[in-house]
């Protein structure tokens, strides 16, 4: 079993699939992107202010929340998937919503996974920025809530790193979306669950090809971010 041979075969298969614009493939890629982008958006809407608040406001139990946050950063996706499944299952507390085995369930699971990452990275970024800016902003007359907004905006390029770290984790995970999504053809099949399926079926070539496409998308997104950051640094120093 020559590994090199597998890879070159998989690579040419991947190119083939892409150029054919295979509709099944496009559907899977499209769903992956939609689910993970939505999850990142929601996770950012929660995680950015949460992280900033943890950095700037003192209150009882803050230390515990921060510790929990850091612990949750390393949550195994499968565990998250299981918990979300139990909650969304018809026999579970939120069963009436009928969300199981839909893209929404997958988004929820991914939000649970990446919000801690975004919140923790935001907290650290804002903490550092606060050291630099706090006194000056206070002297200018900014109140606490305004300071938070200002710091979030000032550090936006560093925060983007956290957001894209979250996106990377979301689009690459398989455990959670498999359990809550069910990998249903034409409904909840994304790149990672498709790869798992093809590997299980023994179609290694197709699985590798999908994997190559997934990595390529990751690379494209990462380089977009890096060039945005680079441009920003040049302009904003």
């Amino acid at each position, binding site marked *: 079993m020559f590994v090199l041979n597998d890879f070159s075969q998989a690579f040419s298969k991947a190119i083939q699939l892409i150029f054919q614009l295979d509709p099944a493939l496009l559907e899977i890629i499209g769903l992956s992107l939609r689910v993970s982008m939505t999850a990142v958006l929601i996770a950012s809407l929660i995680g950015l202010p949460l992280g900033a608040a943890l950095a700037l406001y003192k209150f009882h139990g803050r230390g515990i929340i921060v510790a929990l946050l850091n612990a949750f950063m390393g949550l195994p996706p499968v565990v998250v998937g299981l918990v979300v499944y139990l909650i969304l299952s018809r026999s579970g507390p939120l069963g009436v919503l009928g969300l199981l085995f839909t893209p929404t369930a997958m988004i929820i699971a991914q939000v649970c996974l990446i919000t801690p990452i975004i919140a923790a990275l935001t907290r650290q970024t804002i903490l550092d920025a606060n050291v630099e800016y706090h006194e000056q902003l206070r002297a*200018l*007359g900014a109140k606490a809530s305004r300071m938070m907004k*200002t710091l979030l905006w000032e550090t936006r390029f560093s925060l983007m790193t956290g957001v894209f770290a979250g996106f990377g984790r979301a689009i690459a995970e398989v455990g959670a979306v498999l359990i809550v999504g069910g990998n249903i053809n034409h409904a909840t099949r994304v790149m990672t669950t498709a790869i798992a399926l093809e590997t299980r079926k023994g179609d290694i070539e197709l699985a590798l090809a999908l994997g190559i496409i997934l990595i390529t998308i990751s690379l494209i997104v990462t380089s977009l971010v890096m060039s945005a950051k680079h441009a920003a640094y040049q302009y*904003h*120093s």
Partner: protein
Amino acid sequence: MLHTNIIANMNDVNVLPLQVKNLQITKNGNALLKDVTLSIESNNVTVILGPNGAGKSLLLRSAHGLEDLSKGSLMWNTNIPQPQQSWRAYIFQKPVLLRRSVRANLEYVLSLHSINKANYASLIDAALEHTGLSQLADRNARVLSGGEQQRLNIARAWVLQPRVILLDEPTAELDPNGTAGIERLIKTIAQQGTKIIMSTHDLGQAHRLANDIVFLHQGRLVEHSSADTFFQQPQTKMAQDFIAGKLLNGD
């Protein structure tokens, strides 16, 4: 001249005298400022002078509410309702500017004090012209030179047309050119009737700018007199030594 006075004629508002009574600031068991009592009354340039470690910054920061007092009191004479601070601005030695254009930095300050948006443009343009930054209005604040950044710092204070501007060693980090520019600016602002209180350890600067000297050494008020008096007839030996360029010993 360039005062547009859209927000009210600040010069009509009187916040003086600044009364300081038995002020003490202790940190980590050390009394960094002790037993300081003085009254700043006249509407001109007061310079807080003294060697490093004298407590100049602390006193200045106290005047802007940036320090908690361990003992005593510091009070401005004002009934101006909240939000209070737009009548008083503070210039740090090293400015922290926002990562945005010069103009946007000024807009930011205005937005903190509920100024009518319609007035932004004229207020900002005036401040920019005043500080010679009009050409740089759209440049990112962080790429400006040290002197330009400090001028922006001052513009940021000036755009609110404050009654008082406090400056903490504003030229300590600048080269002679930059320093000259800032000193010119301070003089102009003072001439228009804004009260200036600034700290420096530089005798020459005090000479050039001060109408009024508050001389501190090791946390204590040594002398408070007019500039003429201070330089020509210093009341204390310490002041005399300082003017003569000698290093001062501890008490």
